[in-house]
């Protein structure tokens, strides 16, 4: 097995993980402020749908005067704004009307599925509305020349870079800025936040809607950087995996990133396995090694964040990280015997690993304390 294969798999893994990461960031923003969001799926679907409609109709109405990329940007904005509006409905229902946040999320999902399918059947299909393609790949000068890391991280379409930036920015902002502190205090203990003059209601509205915009990006990326058109129910449960990814990543952006990569990698593997050029045992070992490496990275970041003795010891983290890398290295040196495992079973790996990691390694994932509870001013 060559490492070229691994590099291309990793690069594809990031692409496949991107919608999940955006979705998880959506859930994170909303839940850090104390609002449960099981409507991520609906918001992503809306984002995908409106991004398609926006770009396709803009291009149709302007008759191709503009560069296709202009249409794509218009579509992107329409997708973001629409998903934010849907999130606004979630916010109104759950914050203003104080209806149960799970119900409100379910409403969002039903409405999004109903509306997008309806319009797809009533308008897109009969008129054969076609998309305007996808964003081009931007190779970052110099950085993309770095061996191994370059092709993995720096040869992508623009929305992937935006995702990297957002993950890093939000990780910093949530845990290291006054804004983040206010946000977290609203999610943990709104009464206390209120008593020091933070506007709980406003904070919640703002973050739920901001989260919606992120989910919109997650939907839009599936249209604008992948297939180029809208397919009915195209998010196919990614909103729910994003929810799991968010919890798995312990409500932190970097954690969500790590968890999403695991799912993205297995999706990438699924794509490649259909070509039949990957040894099944090799795939198994690589996914396991990746899980080990990601876990150690997430631990490490948690430790750095706490800036204290809390968390795993650096030796353990380092050891496990090295172990993962070693397995990965060895996997690329050894010639594996040919064993045929049904592809479906290989696809099971990330789900099984998630459960194992969750029970054995990460342990309690506890969300913000006030999540799910409408705020009543005393």
């Amino acid at each position, binding site marked *: 097995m060559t490492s070229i294969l691994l590099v291309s798999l990793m690069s594809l893994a990031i692409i496949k993980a991107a919608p999940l990461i955006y979705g998880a960031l959506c859930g994170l923003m909303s839940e850090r402020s104390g609002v449960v969001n099981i409507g991520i799926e609906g918001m992503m679907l809306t984002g995908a749908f409106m991004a398609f409609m926006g770009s396709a109709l803009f291009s149709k109405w302007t008759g191709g005067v503009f560069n296709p990329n202009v249409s794509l940007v218009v579509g992107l904005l329409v997708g973001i704004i629409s998903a934010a509006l849907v999130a606004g409905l979630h916010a109104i229902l759950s914050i203003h009307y104080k209806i*149960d946040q799970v119900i409100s999320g379910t409403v969002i999902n039903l409405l999004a599925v109903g509306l997008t399918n309806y319009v797809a059947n*009533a308008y897109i299909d009969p008129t054969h509305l076609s998309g305007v393609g996808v964003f081009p790949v931007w190779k970052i000068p110099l950085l993309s020349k770095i061996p191994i890391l370059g092709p993995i991280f720096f040869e992508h379409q623009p929305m992937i870079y935006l995702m990297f930036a957002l993950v890093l920015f939000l990780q910093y902002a949530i845990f290291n800025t006054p804004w983040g502190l206010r946000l977290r205090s609203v999610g943990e203990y709104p009464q206390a936040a209120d008593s020091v003059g933070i506007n709980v209601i406003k904070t919640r509205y703002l973050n739920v809607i901001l989260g919606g915009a992120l989910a919109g990006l997650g939907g839009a990326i599936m249209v604008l950087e992948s297939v180029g058109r809208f397919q009915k129910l195209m998010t196919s449960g990614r909103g729910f995996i994003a929810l799991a990814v968010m919890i798995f990543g312990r409500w932190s952006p970097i954690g969500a990133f790590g968890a999403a990569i695991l799912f993205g990698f297995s999706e990438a593997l699924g794509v490649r396995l259909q070509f039949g050029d990957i040894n099944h045992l090799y795939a198994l070992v690589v996914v396991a090694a990746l899980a080990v490496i990601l876990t150690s990275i997430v631990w490490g970041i948690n430790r750095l964040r706490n800036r204290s003795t809390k968390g795993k010891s650096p030796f353990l983290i380092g050891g496990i990280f090295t172990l993962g890398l070693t397995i990965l290295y060895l996997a690329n040196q050894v010639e594996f015997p040919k064993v045929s495992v049904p592809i479906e079973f290989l696809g099971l790996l990330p789900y099984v690993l998630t459960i194992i990691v969750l029970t054995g390694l990460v342990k309690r994932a506890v969300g913000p304390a006030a999540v799910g509870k409408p705020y009543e001013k005393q």
Partner: protein
Amino acid sequence: MAIFTALLVSSIAILLSGASPIKAFSALAVGAFGTRDNLIETVVKATPLIIAGLGVALAFRGGLFNIGVEGQLFIGSIVAVLVGTNFDLPKIINVPLVMLAGALAGALLAAFSGYLKAWHGAHEVITTIMMNYIVLRIITWAIGANGPLRKPLSIVPETRSLFESARLPLLISDTRLHMGIVIALALAAGVYFLLFRTVLGVEIRIVGKNLHAAKYVGINVKRNIVLTMALSGGLAGLAGAIQVMGIPPYNFTTGFNVGYGFDSLAVAVLGSIHPVGVVFSALLFGAMDAGARLMQLRAKVPIDIITLLQGLILMFVAANQIIRSLYHLPAPSKEDSVNLTQSWGGE
């Protein structure tokens, strides 16, 4: 009122597509209730939703968010198929046996998530979602090309049909109305009795309301979580078993009851997680599913308007303040409500 408003709002969508809302909704009503067969179809469609909806509701009462109903329902069906295509016992034994097998499969799957939560602190939302995918993949393999359960020589992914002895008896011969609805109603009564008339039910509800209180009064919380999940998953599994046992061609194919897990969540929530409410909301969902086809045929309205309608109904029922302010109705007395997101955040 909420339903009326939802109809009104979705009329706009229908008008926009150039069809007549009145024609559409009358076709929907005829399709759901117009003839004996249509009425039967409504009941048949509602049956699994009642049972699975009860499962979701039971978990919610116990403070657990069982989002894995889809997987538990699937494994219930597939195990029912496994047993029902291999054992050909007298009907009186075989029917309960197959149902039990399905229920047990769902119960075990859900109980495992419950165990992981109680003893290892793994969030049930994640583990049940993961289980959904795991079950789905295994089933795809099992009924896929060369899979062990694939019907021989079939060109589509499907299993063999259940033996005659494993099929549910019909209530009215030559129709699709099978015993399932009777079982579903009995289960609704059973769940009501369990929740509100037994010690276990009280314990489940205390754990759901307040974990600390539950510990304080000496309830074995861990055992309770596992048990609640098992009961919830058992209901979901049974719903799946009854689907394959009651509906021709009595087998499992891909695309079979996809979305039931999700619908049952909506049904449970719409029925305000009360067994009686679940029955009515499942019938409502069943009626809309059953009537949708005729609506599409007669009024040329895409079938998906139904999902939209369901969402709107749920929204207006839940946010009844909107309805009250629209129609200037007085506010009802504040009643005891359950917080569905109880288990979500910190303790």
